[in-house]
């Protein structure tokens, strides 16, 4: 790196030394293109005549890309339901206001158009600042990476969720883990009065690298997870210890619990969604239109934020979820370039005429 910085210096002294070595007596500067600043060069002069084609090309390209993006985005089907429980008519009103654990409420909704393709289910939070600086640093990645020492000695950055009152280490420590989203969902398709459970697949919802590299459980040969985590306590807000997050799948426990991983990848913006499940089973590639019932195990308090909770069902394309912005932006600026090109052309032509007349 320093070489880059010292380049001029080095250049100077290298010529100096070469002179010494060659015993060059005179002081005459080297007659090279570099030292005489005569390096062959491209000297563009920005003027309308030269850049006009560029405007048209960029304009056309942008419009093309914009149209493609809009079409792709429009093909994405997305369905969003809020279940915060604010307002008396909301099903979850009771759950939202009576903070009993595992309060259940249901949400009925209708999908008017059948959804083609694989569908992802997200939960969404608004006005939730996962990107708050203090919050964001309140974690111990080394503990989460399964380093045994840090399991019992969490980093200072976790404070005040580093140790509990009895000075037992908290695993996983920190504010992020402590505020782990703990609502649970079950989806049913209302098939002519008969509730058919839509299977939800919770595997591979987190980053592969998070699951396999960045996060791992502390390893201790011949002992199961609960033994490994012995001596630590669960985060204050948690109901279950970390080694018992997923009762159905013993491999999905500890620090590598996929829901946990998703939560730990803190959202960039205060209104965010996080992948909850992928719809699998019979409905994996097609969700028929009709009535659906969502059974919510309501645990997570958002009333004070004041924020909202929602679920989102969405198909994905190569460009991810539904987003019109990029397509519109490309279209608008493509057109702008095009129009600007025309204006420049007209002005330039007139200007040229004036100049010609002048001459």
């Amino acid at each position, binding site marked *: 790196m320093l070489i880059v910085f010292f380049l001029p210096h080095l250049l100077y002294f290298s010529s100096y030394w070469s002179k010494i070595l060659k015993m060059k007596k005179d002081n005459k*500067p080297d007659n090279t293109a570099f030292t005489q600043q005569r390096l062959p060069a491209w*000297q563009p*002069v920005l003027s*309308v005549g030269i850049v006009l084609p560029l405007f048209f090309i960029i304009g056309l390209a942008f419009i093309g890309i914009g149209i493609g993006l809009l079409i792709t985005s429009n093909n994405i089907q997305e369905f969003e339901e809020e279940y915060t429980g604010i307002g008396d008519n909301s099903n979850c009103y009771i759950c939202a206001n009576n903070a009993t654990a595992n309060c259940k409420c249901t949400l009925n909704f209708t999908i008017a158009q059948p959804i083609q393709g694989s569908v992802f289910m997200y939960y969404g939070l608004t006005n939730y600042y996962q*990107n708050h600086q203090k919050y964001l*640093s309140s974690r111990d990645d080394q503990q989460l990476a399964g380093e045994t020492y840090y399991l019992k000695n969490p980093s200072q950055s976790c404070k005040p969720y580093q140790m509990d009152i009895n000075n037992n280490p908290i695993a996983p420590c920190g504010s992020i883990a402590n505020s782990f989203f703990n609502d649970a969902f079950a989806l049913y398709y209302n098939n002519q009065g008969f509730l058919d459970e839509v299977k939800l697949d919770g595997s591979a919802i987190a980053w592969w690298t998070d699951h396999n590299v960045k996060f791992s459980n502390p390893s201790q040969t011949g002992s199961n997870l609960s033994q490994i985590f012995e001596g630590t306590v669960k985060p204050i807000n948690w109901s279950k210890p970390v080694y018992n997050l997923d009762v159905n799948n013993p491999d999905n426990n500890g620090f590598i619990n996929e829901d946990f991983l998703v939560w730990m990848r803190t959202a960039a913006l205060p209104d965010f969604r996080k992948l909850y499940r992928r719809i699998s089973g019979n409905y994996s590639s097609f969700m028929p239109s009709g009535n659906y019932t969502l059974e919510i195990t309501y645990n997570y308090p958002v009333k004070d934020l004041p924020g909202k909770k929602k679920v989102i069902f969405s198909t994905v394309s190569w460009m991810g979820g539904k987003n019109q912005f990029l397509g519109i932006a490309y279209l608008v*600026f493509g057109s702008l370039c095009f129009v600007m090109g025309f204006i420049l052309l007209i002005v330039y032509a007139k200007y040229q005429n004036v100049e010609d007349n002048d001459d």
Partner: protein
Amino acid sequence: MTSVAPESLAAGVFRRIGAKEDKLRTVLPNLPFEGHRKKERPNRDYDTNIIKTTKYTLLSFLPKNLFEQFHRFANIYFVGLAALNFVPVVNAFQPGFSLIPICVILAITAIKDAWEDFRRYTADKEINNMSCLIYTSTLKDYVEKCWKDVRVGDFVKVVCNEIIPADILLLHSSDQNGICYIETANLDGETNLKQREVVRSFSRVETPFQPEYFSGKIICEKPNNDLNRFKGYLETPNSKKIGFNKENLLLRGCTIRNTGEASGIVVYAGHETKAMLNNSGPRYKRSKLERRLNIDIFFCVGLLVVMCLIGAIGNGIWQTQFPELPLFEVPDENGNSTPPALAGFYMFLTMIILLQILIPISLYVTIEFVKLGQVFFISNDLSLYDEHTDSRVQCRALNITEDLGQIQYIFSDKTGTLTENKMVFRRCTIMGTEFCHQENALRLAAHGEADSDEEDRAAPHRELRGRLKQNHGKQNQKNLRRCHSARAYYTGQRRKKSVGLVDSEVAFSSPLETDVTPDKKLLKIVREASAQMDTWCMDGQASDSSYIDFFLALAICNTVIVSTATEPRQRVTEPPMLKPSTYSLEKLHYLLQKLKTGKISQAWTSNQSNSDQSSGTKKAQAIADGTELPEGSWCEVESNGASGGCIEKSCSSRISMESKDDTQGITGEDHVGSELCYEAESPDEAALVHAAKAYNFTLLSRTSEQVTVRLPQGAILTFEVLRTLAFDAARKRMSVVVRHPLTKKIVVYTKGADSVIMDLLETPSREYPEEEKKMKRTAAKTQKHLDWYAKDGLRTLCIAKKVISEDAYEQWSSVRLEAETAIDNKDEMLLETALNLETNLTLLGATGIEDRLQEGVPDTIEALREAGIQIWVLTGDKQETAINIAHSCKLLDQKDIIYTINTDSKETCESILDCTLEEVLQYAPARPASTGVLNANIGFTSPPVANCPTFGLVIDGRTLGVVFQGELQMKFLELAKHCRAVLCCRAAPLQKSQIVKLVRDKLKVMTLSIGDGANDVNMIQAADIGVGISGQEGMQAVMASDFAISRFEYLKKLLLVHGHWCYTRLAKMIIYFFYKNVAYVNLLFWYQFFCGFSGESMIDYWMMIFFNLFFTSVPPIVFGILDKDISAEMLLDLPQLYKSGQNSEGYKWSTFWIAMLDAFYQSLVCFFVPYFTYKDSDIDVFSFGTPINTVAFFTILLHLAIEIKTWTLVHWATMAGSILFYFVVSLVYCATCVTCNAPSNPYFIMELQMADPVFYLVCFITPVIALLPRYLFRIMQGTFSQALVIEARKLDKLDKHKKEKVLRQWKTTLRASDTTSPRSDMLSPLSPRYITANTFNQEASFSLETDNTRHPGKWKVNGADGPQPPQSGQMESEHNCTSDGNADTPKDHSDAFCLGHQRSFSIMTI
């Protein structure tokens, strides 16, 4: 970048406390104390000879360097912020991290400093270990030791060509006269030899000097840095005091020449030597741009505070929307959240840490590197390299390169700066008769022509020289010399340092100066005069003998040192014949007999036959050249023209040759073919000696005791030199007191400025009215001639003599001796005694010496003026000379109205200034107040209408004194502002610097001073940029300067090209740097609106550091060093382009704020395009930051790409390299950092982003949107702007032919708009001007003198001619010469002289 002086000064202070308090230093010899313990040594308190110029030691480096670096305010700021980050409640990053950037910056600077210090260390070591001879009593001999072992009180012996290790009091010299010669080139660059004498009582010690028996005590001054001051006395055991002075001191760093060996006792050693005390490091100047920049830094600080306040307030408001502790709010230990107000305050500090890069941390380091690169390119410019002095441009100040592009006023010295300082004898007047030396003038004119086609012939010549050197070695030296004479331009006036070289230039004078063609009329008179020698022997007052006296004075009255060509530096101390006086006297009588019998002609015929010989050599040279020699051609012209007997001089370069043969014929003495070389302290002395030589008064040798001169007949006279009263500025003259060998009379020859000599002439006694009348007439005539000379631009010197009686001399001598031995008031006493002697002089005559204009000066001045630079000439010379030079170098135009102000009284001065100003304003109402604004309408407008005459102002030193004392500065400036050129004559060094300071401070302009001599040092230091010319007058100006060039004409490229480039490059780079930091930091700022103003950054901290330090640092540096907005050729062709720098167009208030606005806009785009793209998605913080970082990276680089005007391979490479580097580093970093950088730990983020097509879509559109306005603006500017810079850039792209055509067209337009063209109705009839002049003539008490004789027709021709050849002055004088026969008609003459100069009128008052 060390300055040694302060430290050694501090050391000196410290020592002073420890040592004695008195003002004197006592030195005892060390020998008796040898073997004693250190405590008992008498000189233990004095510095040893070890020098240490390093700043640091291995141990002290870290603390000391850090301490120094923290003198820079920015560094403290950043360290403070880094420390703040350790406070948990306010930290924005992991505590240690914010130390990284400042540490990198400090480390880079420290490495640079360490490297420089190491180089000094090795240099010191080398010097300390040089060997020298020190006397030890154990061996009773000198033994070889290192320099560092030399202590005060040691006896040191220095042999020939060795460097003196310390300041040594000279006690012994192998020279029988007790003289030792030293060369002070290492000290002050003066290459002539200087004499040093053995302390008085030690001279003429017949036995070898034995240090053991030295038993004196040396009392001298404390160490000081005045090279020219040293005095003290030596106290012998019997309390006798022997005085000594600087003539007895050998200075450290000088080289012993021409002396076998010299020994003495060390009085000052190491850092206390005068050389070391004089050695101060480069000064630190702050450039205008940097001053501007510092203001803008404060704007940035203001911006930062505003942004932090927004953050703090925003945080407070944000917190209030959460009545209870939300889940994501991290409480403190007690589970409480901080109250909003306090949180807001904490947030303010956090934000400062987060947004600190708004103050560009690496800007200062980057600027330093850029300037280093710029200095590299300036000093490597081949066209600023001077072949014959083998010197490049020296950039002594490293940090003001960009000031070169903003110069508005140039203050120039005249002698040696505008002129070559090669003195050429042109003409003389003896006893009231003028000899115009027409042949000499012709020769010089021809010389000028020969110069002009020098370019083509230079290369083969050099080749030839090399070949000849190899083949023939020493034998051919004479041929080579001929060669030189043909190409006088390239002959070295500077001797190469290595003595052994065969081809080394021995003389400092080129043939141009040494060859003087004698005036035939004068030659005849001299010949006749010397023929009547016998009468002269009897009676010194005989009229014709004045001619002999005149030339004798020229030959004797100087301090020239004679050496021979074959053995350089072998001083001729002995005349060739060993028994001088008696022998030559005999010969003289014999000769006189011979001459009397009418054989003069014969003698001269033999002379002519010698010329055959020289023409033979000429032929040889012609063959060697293989080309037709212009020399040959002018040779022919002359021999045709001058049918007299002195043709030989025209071709032969050495008069000594024929004079040698002359003497051969008569005395049979052979001179072993030695050519005499004269080494003089000032070039005019040498010129006079050469002139005397041309009339066969050849100075053969000189010692402090005697001087030997060969007379035309070959007789050799040895004068006993009784006293030499050296030249000093106060007396403005020098004198030599000699005893005439024939008459035995004591004669005083005095040579000096006409103004002083004329006042010292004897008042003839009333008894001889005839005599009196004659003398008065002679004086009057001479004065008249002197005036002509001055108007002709010649330097004048008067020669006078005085015969004093033996008694009077004895009397004076004793007083003088007293003065010389005195310690207190010595200088005053010496001056007084000198004044006592130099009275009642008899005027012999006067000489006119031409100082030729340097090549390219008129062009350079014209170009600089077109560039909008005001040029003032500040000179110590006479007014007439100065005006003349000003005309010939185009500083003043023929049609300029010149105001001359000479007055002593304040009132007159004020009224003159008022009236002149009034008049000037009347003429120039249409003239825009600031000349800077360039009329950009090249294409459209017709030539501007503003036509008014231009003015020149000439003011002399006395009047300047009045101006400064009488608070008339502002009036003077007001007037000067309206003048095209200002000439200050007879200005003292201090006045020069006063003027510079006045203009710099009052007009608030950028000033540049250029000069070559010690008298310019003040003004060089006073100006914003000091330029020294490394010419003939030593190195003092260079030492004081910021840039040193070897010729004035280099100033053109230095300013117009390098100045422009350096300024635009640096200005643009700085603007870009500000933009870059603001644009980048604002990304973080916008994010605060989405993260609850919590001070979170969405970009990984390492990436942020890398971004500034590595990804985007090299392209701006390359941009700052290499970018060329306009080609060098165009800048030289169109000097008007320089004005963009003068008006600070590259870095203005508006430029800065536009850049800021642009930065805000671009950062908004770079943030919000990704924001809207990733809104409502499941993106995480650092995945969100990666595309933002990437688009910002591309935007910032592409922004630079728009600004880069020249894309060379280096540009492409750094750009591509930066992009590649960014992706490689990001990918590698993201692939390896699993838990290395909590909390971001960007593991695999970049990889996943780069696998996502949206990332590319964002990266594609964002820079386009961000840069669209700027790009559009540049396109508009490039298409429709009339700015000269842009037009010129477009023109650069055209093909050569078309380019020239357009350029010519532009130039006429520009000139018309710039320098107003004369409008016929206003200028050609001069009457309107007179009317104005007359109106205020009535009220003012001065006379208006108008030149009515001027012929309008002639003027018209002058005006239309355009460039006038620089030799016009000469031509004119030659024109005079042709009508020289009627020397007694002074009226015509003066008019003829006037013609060239008194273009309008001048205001004269006494």
